[in-house]
């Protein structure tokens, strides 16, 4: 995980509420959507902010993936898309 991407994702998501966990691994595995950090409209706003921040675009397939429901999964997806230059 790139430190910069991870840090910014935690900042952006953390601005919406607390991401619980004592250790980083626990916080990366936080199911932010299922556990109510954001609702549906909040999710759309989050996606738009992440896309703008990292200059990427999530496709429906990215957002459908179960991984995308965790903080770590979002970070992984961003890093993959950045590596692909999407």
């Amino acid at each position: 995980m790139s430190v910069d991407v991870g840090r910014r994702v935690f900042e952006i998501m953390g601005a919406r509420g607390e991401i619980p966990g004592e250790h980083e691994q626990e916080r990366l595995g936080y199911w932010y959507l299922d556990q109510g950090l954001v609702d549906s409209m909040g999710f759309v706003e989050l996606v738009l902010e992440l896309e703008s921040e990292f200059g990427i675009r999530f496709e429906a397939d990215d957002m459908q993936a179960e991984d995308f429901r965790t903080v770590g999964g979002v970070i992984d997806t961003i890093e993959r898309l950045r590596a692909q230059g999407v």
Partner: protein
Amino acid sequence: MPHVPRDVVALPEGRGRWVALNVFARTCLGVSPEVIALLEAIEAGEPAPAGPFRVWDIQRFSNEDGLLADPSRFVRDPGLWPEAEELDAEAALARLRKHLMLVDDEDAYRARFAPKESLLDFEHVGNFHQQLGQHLLLVTRDKPGPWWLAQKFSDDLRSIRPGAYDFVQRAFLDRYLPERIERGADVLDLGCGIGFYANAMAALGANVLGVDPNPAYLETAAGAATAGARFEVMDVGRPGGLDALPDASFDLIFMTDALLFYFVPVDPASAPDADVLVADIRRLLRPGGAFVSLEPHPAFFQLPWLGDVDRPFTISTEYLNRRFSITGSLGETIAPFLRGGFALRRFEEIAAQPGYGVDDERGFRFASEFPLWQLMELTKD
């Protein structure tokens, strides 16, 4: 065991191409005859025939072109199909599974035909509203509010865009309203939106009050108000929502494209109550007054559009139990009014209006066969 669901049909497209459709899931895939043979072999429990298997990724979310544009979810013109992909048997079967042309477990497959549980629920098929919302928010990133308005109205919101709203609804009302609206009549437009038809009725000499729960819509309505039209925010369909209006104060109450949400609500948890609405209408109408309803007909959202342009047909998958579509049945729509002491005085099924110029022949022909709206006039018994 893998099998082809009985919901799948294949239609000839010519030149060795077929359109395979799952008519319940509304998924589509262009396939070559070898793919049809592959499905036959699966059904017969025989080895896969020789490939290669050609498929065309022709599925699309047609409502991107407009709410009332061709809702069939495949690229209509074979000349615009993408390049064929040549797949081996394993890849072809995977693609057929993805598009629900092939399933392994019938029960699990059937379980997918349920409402979506969240915006990110791609597993369940959901209803039209859910599919559209998911597509607008996650794929095209449109804001649903402005998107809806842009489907019907021109950019300046002063006219109706070309399409079915124009050549069916507006064309009908252009004929009907001058016949029906009397100068000096007091008219209430329930759920008036941006006030397009409220203003049209005021221009015919009526005193029109347009009410709607959406303040942003009414701000637009007030900005374009014709003399004789005024607008107020009111929570139509909620208990007490119209209490500010005195009894027996209107000669005619008009409602269009709003009653459907009483029968198939966007959000089932907060459905408006048709009986409340009917009681309000009954209270507000003067003796001899009428409620005029112009609503999407149960044939309004039939998809796919199939057949030659001059011989349109569709495949209906539901009528009484709406799992996908967005209107009530005829009986459901009329029942609360009969229960509330109204009599149905006039009923018309509104198809495309002859003589109106159109640039969408398939849509016009389809709307000439399957009525898109229905007019009801109801009076107090």
